[in-house]
């Protein structure tokens, strides 16, 4: 209640402690072995991101488990500084 109110007052250029698309991509790729991430900031506001992630670790896991692996990279930042991280996850295509 009280403690949360000030952050919502107005946008301020002095409070840009927000992650960039590049940083989110880098963190996903360094935390999940072999992952390739494409990340876009789809509102331009620095807090709503959409990521498409391909990683060998996703093979054999449910969608829920795949998304959890990515969410775990950011912990409590999801819902905080990162208001939304929309995900599409998939294992890499099989080698031919």
């Amino acid at each position: 209640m009280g403690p949360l109110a000030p952050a919502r007052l107005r946008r301020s250029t002095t409070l840009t402690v927000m992650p960039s698309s590049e940083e989110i991509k880098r963190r996903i790729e360094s935390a999940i072995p072999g992952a390739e991430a494409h990340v876009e900031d789809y509102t331009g506001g620095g807090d709503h991101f959409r990521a498409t992630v391909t990683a060998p670790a996703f093979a054999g896991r449910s969608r829920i488990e795949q998304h959890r692996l990515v969410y775990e990279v950011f912990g409590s930042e999801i819902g905080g500084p990162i208001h939304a991280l929309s995900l599409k996850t998939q294992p890499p295509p099989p080698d031919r």
Partner: protein
Amino acid sequence: MSNSPTADDLPMAHGQPPPPAPAAPDQTNAVREAIAQAIAEHRVILFMKGNPEAPACGFSARTVAALQSVGAPFAAVDVLPDPRIRAELSAISNWPTIPQLFVDGELVGGCDIVCEMYESGELEEAVR
């Protein structure tokens, strides 16, 4: 016009804990128990921001739209009135974001997964 069942018809308590036991020692556990009970009592239940008639977030709105498109009756709980609902829900489900859809007591997913399942036809199967 529409006579389809809505969340307002369902006996949801909008996340409020049941009448406290005489001592009411732990409010947090009461919220968690109320959430677990709601999940157990409703086969298809959506925790969202706002309500199905007036979603308060685009992700919740899209998830409601997907469920309505497959004609699935569902219960809905608004997490906004009390921040403990969201905190306890995420602790139960190990899922950080809202909305969250549960079917048969199991977390199905949030907006991304529900919308993917809607597009692939899996959602209709899951809620049937």
